[in-house]
């Protein structure tokens, strides 16, 4: 049994079958990549996992509990964090505040009315957020306005915010899309480090094969809404079906 079990998930949009009978099992503490050509249904699948979409058929179990019908914040509280394709951060807030919010969410749950306390007096939160900023190598940017950071920094901040919640499963949606080579390599190193040092499962949707093969221990290939193969990277590389799916694309 993996930590995430996707069974027979299907999703239609009008006449379009976006997902059909997707089965997927992500093993605990592994890095699992989901790849596939454009329009293969990768993003739809991801949205079904985090509560943005509800699949028409099938089940999604996380750690033995169904996530279907739950809202995104409830699923997050169960231990699934998501990194977006374009970094979603609180751009009007300072970097430190950005990091404090997930710490509060981890400690206090989805809502707590702490309207009178001064937030800087919450020592445990401040310490945790500061430690996380050091881990992410951005302690010097503490007071910066999050909107004024570079894209690479925003991505790192977002990953840090997700980690601050100590999730059991981290979902990444094309984390290196639109990044320069150097930034991409930095992100790969960061993710490697996270997966080595922490007790965490990573599921990554990616287009960039370089990223996939440097990180993944297990790969699922999705085409036209159904999984073609699931195997380890070595076997995927030469797989004829995969080549067929990616025909014309640089695999």
């Amino acid at each position, binding site marked *: 049994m993996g930590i995430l079990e996707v069974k027979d998930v299907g999703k239609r949009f009008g006449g379009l079958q976006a997902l059909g009978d997707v089965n997927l099992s992500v093993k605990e503490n592994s890095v699992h990549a989901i790849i596939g050509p454009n329009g293969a249904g990768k993003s739809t699948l991801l949205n079904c996992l985090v509560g943005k979409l509800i699949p028409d058929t099938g089940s999604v179990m996380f750690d033995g509990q169904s996530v279907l019908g739950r*809202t995104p*914040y409830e699923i*997050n509280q169960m231990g699934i964090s998501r990194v977006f394709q374009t970094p979603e951060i609180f751009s009007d807030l300072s970097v430190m505040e950005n990091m404090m919010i997930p710490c509060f969410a*981890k400690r206090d749950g989805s809502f707590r009315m702490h*309207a*009178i306390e001064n937030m800087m007096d919450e020592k445990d939160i401040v310490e945790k957020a500061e430690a996380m900023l050091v881990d992410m190598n951005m302690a010097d940017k503490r007071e910066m306005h999050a909107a004024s950071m570079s894209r690479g920094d925003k991505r790192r901040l977002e990953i840090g915010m997700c980690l601050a919640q100590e999730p059991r499963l981290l979902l990444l949606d094309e984390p290196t899309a639109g990044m320069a080579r150097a930034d991409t390599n930095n992100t790969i190193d960061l993710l490697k480090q996270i997966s080595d040092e922490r007790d965490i499962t990573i599921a990554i949707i990616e287009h960039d094969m370089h990223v996939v093969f440097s990180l993944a221990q297990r790969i699922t290939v999705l085409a036209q809404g159904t999984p073609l193969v699931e195997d380890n990277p070595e076997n995927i590389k030469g797989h004829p079906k995969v080549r067929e799916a990616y025909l014309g694309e640089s695999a």
Partner: protein
Amino acid sequence: MLGLNKKDMTLLIAVAVLTMFAPFFLNPFPTDSAMAQFNAGYPDLMQRFVIFGIFAIGFNILFGLTGYLSFGHAAFLGVGSYAAVWIFKLFTYNVVPAILLAVIVAAVFSVLMGYVSLRRSGIYFSILTLAFAQMMFALAYSVLSNPKFNLTNGETGLQVYPNDPQMFHPEGMQDFPHLFGLYMNSTYTMNVGPWAFDFNTGYYLCAVVMLAVFYLAIRIFRSPFGMMLRAIKSNQTRLNYTGLNPRPYTLAAFVISGAYAGLAGGLMAAMDPLAGAERMQWTASGEVVLMTILGGTGTLIGPVLGAGFIKYFENIFSKINDAVLHQWFAFLPDGLEDFVVFIIHPFVGKGWHLTLGILFMLVVIFLPGGLVEGGQRIGKWIKNRGKSEDSDAGPKTEPAE
């Protein structure tokens, strides 16, 4: 001190000094001078400054922090007023129970309205609040004032009549709201040479209440709750995927700001025991929006400044008439004098709203941070004036706090 950092404490003290000594600041001209008509230090106007200040501070907690633009907050102010007048009618002229009930009733109404309206965001939220407020206005204005069931007394407005029960109103006390015997309309006038300064009980009650709720607003702004509200304005998607439920946060903010509005309404009734439906109209809600934006949305002091600014100039501008204008421009040659007066005429006197509308548009277009941002820009300009040209403009402007 008081759980505030140094900067916030300074701000609080500054506001305290300003409100406590307002009778002096607002009456700078000797009573018999020609400028005396521009004195603003009379009780009625000073009360309005602080009451609308409270209203705007509360509105800013919702709009400034979460970005949800409500066009229905005047409804809570009106509801608060009605509740307070009912206490006067049925029980006692003491303002404490009246104000407490005003806050509670407004909070209850805002829970209902907020629960429904906050299911939508953006423009839909604005229109829902607008629809609710207009509905409540219609209810107050005509529906709930029929002979069988007269809750609001319609067009005339709700007021206290001699045959009302007033169960706990002792014999021999005046028929006016009081705080344990201190009448709201009692004023002590201090004469210093040609100057006269009015110290009004009602004003000081309002001022103390405003300081208290201003302090509360600072605490909310600096609290984790306040940070969550700003996070909602900044990025709701991320908030959802960080395991936080925006709904109760926005609802709490909505109710707090509704309670502030109710408090303002209760105080308004305490200063003058009368409640009318026109207080609830959506244009009245528009006014508090104007105050908040003009002062500086999302800043602590902005709404207070905006409320003071609008109420002050409303008072001054409406007093300027052609005679005053001619007096001012008497130094100009005749033809030019008439021309200048002709140009200015539409903007003063009854034309105050025109000036306000133009001013408001200018602020939204050029100065989204309102008066506070304007002040900061001027401050920066003065600071930088001495420095050499090559000195860096510095990092991006911090959001005004």
